[in-house]
C-alpha cells in the first residue's frame, strides 16, 4: 500500500472544507422542518460529492476518517454532540469498508457514501434525541421511524456518490484529477 503523502492530506483537508461549505449552504433550508435526520438527508447529496471525490483521490481505508475526523474536530466548536455522532459514523463506515478493501472501485465508493450518511442520520437522530430527552430516543428507535430515515439518507448518500462520479469525470477530462479507474 502506498504511504500517505502531503498531497493526500492537503486534498483531504480541502474536501473537508467542501463538505462543511455544502452543509452551510444546504442545512439552512431545513431549519424550520422539525423532522429527525432531515438535515443530513438534505446535506448528503452535496456533501457526498466531496466525500466521493476524496475517496476517489485517496482510495485507501482511512480516507473517510481523515476527512470526517477533521470535520468532527472543526465542529467540536459548535457542539460535542455533533463531534460524537460524526466520529461514531466514521468508525462504522471505516470498519465496514476495511472488509471491502478501501475505496478504489466505484461500487465501494457508493457503499461508503451510503453507509456513512445512513449511519450519520441514525446516530445523529438518536444522540440528538437522547440529549433532548431519553424518552424521545425510545420513540425514535421504533422501526417505522428509523427504517425510512435510514433508507432515505442512504439514498441521499447514493445521489451524492452519483454526482461525485460525474464531477470526477469532468475533473479528469480537464486534467485536474489523477485517479486510477
Amino acid at each position: 500500500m502506498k504511504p500517505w503523502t502531503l498531497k493526500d492530506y492537503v486534498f483531504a483537508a480541502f474536501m473537508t472544507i467542501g463538505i462543511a461549505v455544502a452543509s452551510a449552504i444546504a442545512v439552512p433550508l431545513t431549519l424550520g422542518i422539525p423532522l429527525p435526520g432531515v438535515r443530513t438527508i438534505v446535506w448528503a447529496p452535496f456533501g457526498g460529492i466531496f466525500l466521493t471525490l476524496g475517496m476517489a483521490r485517496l482510495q485507501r481505508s482511512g480516507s473517510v476518517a481523515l476527512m470526517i475526523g477533521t470535520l468532527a474536530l472543526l465542529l467540536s466548536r459548535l457542539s460535542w454532540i455533533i463531534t460524537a455522532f460524526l466520529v461514531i459514523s466514521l468508525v462504522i463506515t471505516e470498519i465496514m469498508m476495511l472488509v471491502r478493501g478501501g475505496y478504489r472501485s466505484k461500487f465501494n465508493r457508493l457503499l461508503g457514501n451510503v453507509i456513512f450518511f445512513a449511519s450519520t442520520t441514525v446516530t445523529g437522530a438518536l444522540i440528538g434525541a437522547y440529549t433532548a430527552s431519553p424518552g424521545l430516543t425510545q420513540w425514535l428507535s421504533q422501526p417505522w421511524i428509523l427504517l425510512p430515515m435510514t433508507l432515505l439518507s442512504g439514498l441521499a448518500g447514493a445521489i451524492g456518490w452519483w454526482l461525485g462520479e460525474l464531477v470526477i469525470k469532468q475533473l479528469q477530462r480537464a486534467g485536474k484529477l489523477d485517479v486510477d479507474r
Partner: protein
Amino acid sequence: MSIARASSKSPGFLTRVNPLAKIIVSLVITGMAFSVKNVWAMGVLAAVLVVLLMLCITRQNIRQIGQGMIAGTIALLLFVAIGTLLLNNVQAALLYGLRLVAILLPTPLLALTTPPADLVRALQAAKLPSFLILSLMLTWRFLPIIQQESQRILEANQLRGVDISRQPQHWFAGLFVPLIFRIVSYADDVTIGLETRGYDPNATRSMSQPLVWQLRDTLFVIGSVLVVVLVGYLDSVNAGG
C-alpha cells in the same frame, strides 16, 4: 466565524486559561449533565454555565447579550412547555430543559474563550497525529476563503439573472461544479507551496509558544472541581427529586 472573531477580542480570565484544561473540563461537564437526575443539581450546573457565558459575552456586545438572552429564554420555555405536554410532568420537562442547556453551553463557552491557534496548540500538546493538526489548520485557514468563493459564484449567477441560492435543483451545475474546480486548484497550489517550503507532515513539530501550566490554570481546575462536587452532592442528597 463570529466565534473565532469573538474569542480573539476577549482577554478575560477564561481566555488565558490552559486550553487543554478547558477542553477536559468541558467534556467532564457535558458527561456530568447526562448523568445528573435532580432538577436542583442540574439548575446549579446550568446556572454556572449561563453566568460564565454572560461574563464572556459581556466583553463582546451588549445588544448581542440581550438578543441572545431573550432568544435563549424563549427557546428554553418552549422546550419545557412542549416537554410538559408530552411527559405530563413539569419537573421532568424542566430537568430535560436544564440538561439541554448544560449539554449545549460548554462548547460555545470553550469556543468563545479559546482562539483557534490556542486550540491547535492544545491538540499538539495532547499528541494528536500531526497530519490531523495540519488538516485542521488548513481547514480553519481556507474555510472562509472557500465560503467567499461560493458567494462569488452565487453573485456571478445573480449578475446573469439567475438566483440559485434558493433553487437547490440548480446547485450542482451552477454552484458546486465551479466551486469544486476552484477547491481542487487551491489544493494543488497549497500542496506545491508546502512542498517547496520543505514541509514534512511526519516531522516532529516545535511550538513558538509552548503550553505552560500556570496558577490561573490550577485555580480554574479547583473552581471546576468545586462546581462538580457541589452538583454531585446536590444530586445525591436530592436523589429522586
